[in-house]
């Protein structure tokens, strides 16, 4: 009994002070992100950070599937684009012959619903495969989606897609204003990040990791392994869908190119560069990707090289990461911290 009691009070104490358990680094990062609009110019807010948060969310949805579920899906960018298409079709756009003009509180939930349903069907097809075959089947669906949207004019308006897809004037704010858009994307990126972290320790997330490590054992514990994997696709699609709507608002348009093979593969590159093991990885990867994509051209040209070579730069970066640290930049960081905690002569762990 006595043991029981002390343990209970111990839990109560840690729970009461959960806010104190948040590491200092998070406070600093959180504060810096909140204060950013005071220092950064509009371009940095809208193009660099807005885009980073959006791509980070899409890569996060992949990280959830790959990191916790062991399923590498190349479908996430297509799901994002699908959500974008759906808000354009159900809501308003410059293509008035197709757009239905329904209010945002109908079009956005409906867009997310369609996205989740589509992901559930694709997931149901994909979870019967493993490893390289999952990559192949999701890539096949992604390419089919690209070609279908490009050729279908009745619903998807073919090659040109939809432009003039704008966020609603909710609370009288112009959500495409750089500061407003920055906070909008920061908010949803934070929500997604926290949701993934939370779910990873909830029964659903724990079981998903169990399914990743040992599906046979999970079945012998009463879990329907297939259903669990499919549900993971649905959950990840919700995150990708929200990101896709934000992405569509950012450029005010969505077209087949949004989910062309290039962007589809870039999501994988982003997630791998950042690290697939923790939900912060995809955002780090996205920031690196966006910085490279934005500035590498100028740097290359100033060095007298052809600007298009920036793809090569990203490719080399990808190779280096995969070669040196399969866990991405986060893996490098972990190793550096690990080494710092060791005595350089003996290699023993130092007592802290």
């Amino acid at each position, binding site marked *: 009994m006595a043991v029981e009691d002390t343990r*209970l009070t111990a*839990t*109560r104490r840690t*729970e009461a002070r959960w806010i104190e358990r948040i590491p200092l680094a998070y406070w600093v990062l959180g504060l810096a992100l909140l204060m950013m609009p005071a220092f950064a110019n509009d371009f940095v807010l809208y193009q660099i950070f807005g885009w980073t948060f959006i791509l980070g969310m899409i890569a996060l949805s992949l990280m959830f599937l790959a990191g916790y579920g062991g399923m590498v899906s190349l479908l996430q960018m297509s799901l994002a684009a699908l959500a974008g298409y759906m808000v354009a079709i159900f809501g308003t756009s410059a293509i008035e012959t197709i757009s239905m003009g329904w209010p945002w509180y109908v079009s956005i939930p409906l867009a997310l619903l369609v996205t989740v349903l589509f992901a559930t069907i694709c997931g149901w097809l994909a979870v019967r495969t493993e490893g390289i075959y999952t990559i192949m089947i999701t890539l096949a669906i992604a390419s089919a989606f690209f070609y279908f949207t490009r050729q279908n004019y009745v619903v998807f308006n073919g090659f040109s897609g939809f432009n003039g897809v704008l966020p609603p004037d909710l609370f009288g704010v112009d959500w495409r204003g750089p500061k407003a858009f920055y906070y909008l994307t920061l908010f949803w990126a934070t929500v997604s990040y926290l949701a993934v972290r*939370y*779910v990873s*320790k*909830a*029964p*659903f997330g*724990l*079981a998903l*990791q*169990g399914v990743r*490590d*040992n599906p*046979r*054992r*999970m*079945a*012998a*514990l*009463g*879990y*329907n*392994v297939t259903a*669990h994997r499919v*549900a993971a696709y649905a959950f990840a699609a919700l995150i990708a869908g929200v990101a896709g709507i934000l992405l569509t608002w950012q450029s005010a348009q969505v077209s087949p190119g949004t989910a062309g093979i290039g962007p589809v593969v870039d999501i994988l590159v982003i997630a791998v560069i950042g690290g697939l093991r923790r939900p912060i990885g995809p955002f780090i990867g996205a920031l690196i990707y966006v910085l490279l994509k934005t500035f590498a051209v100028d740097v290359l040209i100033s060095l007298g090289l052809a600007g298009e070579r920036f793809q090569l730069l990203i490719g080399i970066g990808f190779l280096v990461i995969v070669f040196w640290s399969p866990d991405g930049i986060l893996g490098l960081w972990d190793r550096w911290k690990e080494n710092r905690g060791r005595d350089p002569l003996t290699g023993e762990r130092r007592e802290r």
Partner: protein
Amino acid sequence: MNAPTTSAIAERMSATGTANALELRNVSKFFGALAAMEDISLSVRPGERRAVLGSNGAGKTTLFNCVTGDFLPTSGTIRFFGEDVSAFPAHERIRRGLRRTYQISLLFSGLTVIDNIYLACVGVSRERFSFLRARRDDALMASAEDLIRLVHLEDATHTPVAELSYGQQRQLEIAMALSGAPRFILFDEPAAGLSPTERRELIDILTGLPGHMGFIIIEHDMDVALRVAESVTMMHNGRIFKEGKPAEIEDDPEVQALYLGGGDDG
């Protein structure tokens, strides 16, 4: 063939308590040309404790795999408390109260002891798809802690499984098989590799299970098998070779010749 209604009624009648906990009829399992299990028919009453003996490769683990649905038998029918589960996937059988342990521990080595047992408790509950974390007064977490106490792993509650001793891992396997409300449990060589003390603890746990909880235990150690079981099935080359009370089996000259010959050194 029976009309569906007739068979459905028979199904329900046989499921109302008179049925055997486990009933195998002519179950075979072939791996290519190899008959790992051939034409096995077996009945175990509810609450009965049965030992399955047999040399390595006799087909004992294959029998378990077919019963739990880890893989489907090549032919034959399996009934669990009267219900034909032959075509059920493993998780459906587990949800009906069947449990098992694995001969070679199948644990989640990256997770802690409590998380392993918690996963087992969640798996047979309705919270499998819950997106909400366990609260401090969570009933499943509480039952996980009870199971930890039952197998004496309190001190290792938050230890990652990879850091457990072999004996502790075996105990964890047993705790996971006891999650939820088991009606029948299959123990695959739970005592193998345990120290004498751990063996005694294991016997205490098995004999201490509630009377309605029947089980089959595969066990090479006759001492353990005969102390926890009230009936014995001998397997040899994928077939049932002998069935009876422990004393009969022990004294049977054929069994002695085949299995116990020079077996005194254990």
